[in-house]
């Protein structure tokens, strides 16, 4: 897979593999986070951190609490215990608006595109946070509002070029094939120019070609923009090849944390995937 990625993504992959990216300090960390729904404990006392500039994978069998963890980071769920520290500020829980405005963006496991809008509008919606002009100027669609709209359109077009989706710009997203929808969702997340990009199973349901493309996009974004990426993924090949560090969850608990090689050799992780309970 690694060789494939290098071959397909050319310069980006090779550069990433040789990697003179700087992995910096801790950008986000969760400390002793627990989350329960009624009687069901989704997450129990999990702590890990994500360093600036790295690609951090979160893996584990189904029901391990991975998506719940991302939801906590986003502020959609509020943990019962524990804290979240983002960019130095420690919080009891995150709020969606704060997460978004401080630079966290996200894709979703089951796709959360705006089905009633076109590709272009979906990605433009990702710029909403950055668009400041008031209602009155927008009502005139002239002057400052128009200039702002054009400026953001230019930024969005760069993303469309990058993700090679020019041909479906004006297509309603509901009608697109699954792989393209996932790409549009990535575009929408990128439109926010995030510092931390949370990807929930971005390659689910994709064939090998699509996975290569998606990996290439993620690597390029990480390499050239310095975007920190946290990704939930089931394809072990992908995880081992593109991530810098991995955290493994099982039944809501952290059972391993380290480089891909370390985690791959960890007996508890192997047992978890083989279904041997502890």
């Amino acid at each position, binding site marked *: 897979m690694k060789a494939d990625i290098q071959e397909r993504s050319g310069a980006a992959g090779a550069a990433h593999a040789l990697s003179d990216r700087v992995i910096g300090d801790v950008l986000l960390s969760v400390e002793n986070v627990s989350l329960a729904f009624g009687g069901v404990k989704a997450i129990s006392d999990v702590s890990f951190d994500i360093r600036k500039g790295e690609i951090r994978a979160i893996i584990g069998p189904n029901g391990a609490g991975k998506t719940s963890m991302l939801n906590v980071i986003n502020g959609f769920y509020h943990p019962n215990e524990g804290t979240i520290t983002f960019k130095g500020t420690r919080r009891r829980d995150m709020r969606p608006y704060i997460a978004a405005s401080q630079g966290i963006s996200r894709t979703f496991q089951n796709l959360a595109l705006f089905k009633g809008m076109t590709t272009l509008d979906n990605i433009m919606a990702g710029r*909403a946070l950055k668009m400041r002009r008031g209602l009155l100027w927008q*009502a005139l669609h002239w002057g400052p509002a128009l200039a702002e*709209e*054009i400026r953001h359109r230019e930024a969005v077009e760069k993303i469309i070029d990058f993700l090679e989706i020019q041909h479906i710009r004006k297509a309603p997203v509901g009608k697109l094939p699954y792989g393209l929808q996932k790409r549009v969702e990535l575009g929408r997340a990128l439109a926010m120019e995030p510092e931390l990009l949370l990807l929930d199973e971005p390659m689910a349901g994709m064939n090998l070609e699509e996975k290569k493309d998606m990996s290439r996009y993620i690597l390029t974004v990480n390499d050239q923009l310095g975007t920190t990426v946290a990704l939930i993924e089931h394809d072990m090949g992908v995880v081992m090849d593109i991530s810098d560090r991995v955290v493994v969850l099982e039944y809501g608990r952290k059972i391993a944390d380290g480089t891909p090689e370390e985690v791959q050799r960890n007996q508890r992780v192997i047992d978890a995937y083989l279904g041997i309970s502890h």
Partner: protein
Amino acid sequence: MLYREAGQFKTSYAADMAIFPIRQDRIALLLLLAFAFVGIPLLAHFQLWPLGSDYMLRAILIPFLILALAAIGVNILVGYCGQISLGSGAFMAIGAYSAYKFGTGVHIPLEFIGSEIAIPPLPVLPSILLGGLMAAIVGILFGIPSLRIKGLYLAVATLAAQFFFDWVFLRVQWFTNYAPSGSVNAPDLVFFGYFVHSPIERYLLCLIFVTVFALIAKNLVRGNIGRQWMAIRDMDIAAELMGIRPLYAKLTAFAVSSFIVGVAGALWAFVYLGSWEPLAFSIDRSLQLLFMVIIGGLGSILGSFLGAAFILILPIMLDQVPHALGIPISVETVSLLVFVVTGSLICYLLIVEPHGFARLWAIAKEKLRLWPFPY
């Protein structure tokens, strides 16, 4: 063949974002506007068919324009932002009665601080706009629950608004300036010194209002706020996680929608009815507006016009067509038939084309692009 985009290249994003990017559409719109602003008044002035008598203007075109405006307002809230509202009639009433009070002078004694609020009668245009503003303020208030309650539950909240204001305008006689009969007369329509009186003049007045507000609405829905509204409608959780504030998006939708509906209400009362009672704005009106928006197309400005035209023309057609065919049909049966046809059409459209007439129109245009070739 006629309707091809070939050769029309956009060289700027602004051109690509235009309301009518295709040249043929622009020409068609200009022709339509020319006909509306010049053609119809000329026909009416010389009493040529179909404007031989006042009927067409007074009973069809004027109500069509005003209801289309109201439908645009409702579409913004229901179609673009996805917040269901069964209370639009009440907002029309708020617009109408507020405009009436501003037009006849507002006097509120405030005994507890030994003072009063006294505003002299305002000219008609500011009164109407202030009527819209009052509706917008109430709209925001009733929109606040929408942050916690969604869908059906919100529908009930809007019903609360509808029935509550029905009662307010009936009981609180201050709104009708203590008129013994409970019905009120609109003030004279004087705009910038010009006295608007004849049907042609009223028609042009409504046309101006509708054109301006339709343009404003279209600008809003294709811009940032429009995308925020649609994002909330489609996936409000994802929208929030992207930094779109549901509070701001929903309340602006309520505000803008209620403002437009309020202005439409004021126009309905002042320009169309002349004198009115609270019944003009009851739940029937709310449902009628909702139907216009569903049939015409949710989330489409054009759809608002199509839906309004259809709902208005339907009873007339159901009345005229049997007569033309020689089948006797009573007034009552006509009104019952309207019920049946409207209801059936809604069900049919929901099954076959949930996006209403506007989508059917868009599909027709797509086919027109290929015409006369089959594919």
